């Protein structure tokens, strides 16, 4: 059976069929309902309202599945999708431990190779499982060149245990282990520049994405799926509970993170920057910060608040500068974030 035939069969078996008109009212299905789609992660799971991670995982699965298997690190995604005997996954999925998703995925991939199968292996982890405790296993997987797409759902703290700081938590953000108080203004350290470390492994493809830009996110997943080798995607995924913003604001918050420059959307191939999502008008970081309770202490009377805001603005400006996010001048191809604009490299050429 060819890969294409197999894929079609799997899609038919596990995909959602186009909805029919309502039997009683005769109402036509919405265009979204009318579209046959593969849903690797089904609805009905236990994620919070407005969960960025649940949205991101669904978007990834829609275009990655169904001929995949997933190694999932311990975390919210694992917990809210699988309390026995129910599971929201429509693909083979395994959770082992917190810090070994990349190694478990390596083993799955080795098994597929040994058994002559082409099923692509995905590894999912949060920022705690990726930036921190699973970092070594991830580096090993990339170095050994396993054919695995690793997706990090970055919500910038240990949310599953109740919002503790990770090395991905932004500077000055409050968490339960980096609270603001008389002596402290939230997290004292910087957010780890993970993507640069990943890029230093010179893997075929590494990129950042955001739930606020689903088309861009899915394009990056599809591109990574086509590569025979290690690929990495970090997806900025707001957590309303941990970031303390209204559930309905998830997309707004995520979009502003990109628009202010604090979370640049970039693509790197073999360690070199090949593509960025441009920012037409860079927002001040305060537009992003003020939507979230985790930065509320930066808007009080404390004289250090201004200092911290300036620091965060400088970090955003630094990203804009090093990644060339605003470009040299007006860019005729700039779609204002509707799609990434290729400036060079293979990724741009393939679109």
């Amino acid at each position, binding site marked *: 059976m060819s890969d294409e035939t197999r894929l079609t069969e799997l899609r038919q078996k596990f995909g959602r069929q186009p909805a029919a008109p309502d039997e009683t009212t005769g109402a036509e299905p919405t265009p979204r309902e009318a579209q046959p789609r593969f849903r690797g992660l089904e609805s009905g799971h236990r994620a919070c309202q407005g969960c960025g991670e649940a949205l991101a995982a669904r978007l990834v699965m829609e275009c990655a599945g169904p001929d995949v298997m997933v190694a999932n690190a311990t975390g919210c995604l694992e917990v809210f999708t699988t*309390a026995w005997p129910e599971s929201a996954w429509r693909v083979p999925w395994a959770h082992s*431990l917190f810090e070994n998703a990349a*190694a478990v995925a390596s083993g799955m991939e080795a098994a597929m190779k040994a058994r002559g199968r082409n099923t692509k292996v995905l590894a999912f982890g949060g920022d705690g499982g990726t930036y921190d405790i699973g970092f070594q296993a991830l580096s090993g997987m990339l170095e050994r060149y396993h054919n695995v797409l690793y997706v990090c759902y970055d919500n910038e703290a240990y949310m599953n245990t109740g919002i503790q700081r990770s090395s991905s938590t932004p500077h000055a953000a409050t968490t339960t282990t980096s609270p603001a108080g008389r002596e402290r203004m939230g997290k004292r350290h910087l957010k780890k520049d993970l993507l640069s470390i990943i890029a230093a492994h010179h893997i075929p493809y590494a990129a950042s994405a955001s739930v606020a830009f689903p088309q861009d996110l899915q394009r990056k997943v599809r591109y990574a799926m086509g590569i025979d080798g290690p690929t990495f995607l970090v997806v900025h995924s707001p957590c309303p509970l941990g970031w303390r913003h209204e559930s309905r604001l998830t997309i707004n918050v995520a979009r502003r993170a990109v628009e202010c420059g604090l979370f640049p959307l970039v693509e790197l191939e073999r360690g070199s920057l090949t593509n960025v999502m441009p920012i037409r008008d860079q927002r001040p970081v305060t537009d992003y910060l003020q939507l979230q309770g985790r930065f509320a202490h930066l808007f009080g009377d404390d004289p250090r608040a201004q200092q911290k805001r300036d620091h965060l603005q400088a970090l955003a400006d630094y990203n804009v500068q090093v990644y060339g996010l605003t470009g040299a001048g007006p860019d005729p191809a700039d779609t204002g974030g509707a799609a990434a604009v290729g400036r060079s490299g293979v990724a741009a050429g393939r679109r």
Partner: protein
Amino acid sequence: MREALEGSQAIARAVSLCEPDVVAAYPITPQTHIVENLSKLVADGDLHTEFVSVESEFSAASVALGAAAAGARAYTATASQGVLLMAEVLFNIAGLRLPMVMTVANRAVSAPLSIWNDHADSMAVRDSGWIQLHAASNQEAVDTTIQAFRITQQTELPVMVCMDGFILTHTMEPIDLPSIDEVRAWLPPLEFDRQLDPEDPRSVGMLVTPDFFPEVRHSHHTAMRKSLEVIETTDADFAQAFGRASGGLLTVEGDVTARVGIVAMGSTVGTLQAGMAHYAAEAAGPALLIKLRSYRPFPARALRDAVRGLDTVIVIDRAISPGMGGILGTEVAAVLAGMPDAPKLVNHALGLGGRDIPETIYSDLLAAIRDPDAPAFSVFDADMEKLPPEDR
């Protein structure tokens, strides 16, 4: 065919005969020669496997886990600190009921740093839910490795084959290796029903609430107890096919009129056999030698049968639980509890951190039970002269 092979080399060859799909390993003394030999077999094209040279033992176990979950025959090997670094994954592998085989080249655990043999490493993961089989010789280690692949397939319990570091791994002996055709005929291909498969997607390793957790543990315990029979029949079946057994759950040898039994695991058994042969005249009476091969599952009934009618049982531990005493000794005591006319139990730790166990230990142990002031547990070969008085 009999060949002169180093223990590690023989294990690598035995693993190779079982044709694993995936081998993942990280080097650690005294396991290193096993992975070196496997790597060379792969490099020479004699073994077709996905050999994954990982960045830690933690990942070695995790790669094997992922491979097994995806339906591959998986193997890894480690020792000492490596076992402890793997510990979290080992519990996970067993809890997921994944079939795989691991060799442990038993070595002491730091601190103080020691690269030499004792059983502290595999004892530390005693409760992980793995089957633990101890080999007394390199031939037994080879045969037990081949048997382990069949046991793990049949029971869906991971199997640890324990062999004493250096004493076995680095000793050259004549080894009888079966041919690959013989092994293929004896070891059926792995057909793991719960494997990850896009055509039959299932979720593995899910969150389990208190509503189901005790049942999971109970069924694991039941599976371990049921595996006692599988271990025994597999060894018997192996003996029928290859003409030699490895000792089932346990074996008893020596003078049947003896009133004293000595229980031991691993290469200590070989030392005691030699001691029995060479120092019987010096010994205070005959003894039965009870070689325990299956440490987990623990063969309680077989052990009771083996010691029934004895006056004294001496249990040799190659590990210690500080604050309690011997680990094997404590378990044997638990098994003897409630047994009518249970023999008196004497427990000694021996050979910790690679301290050489001489053949004369056989007569020394038998002499020691005559001492009415002897403690119930001792580190038998510890030299008190080397310690300050307050530590004795």
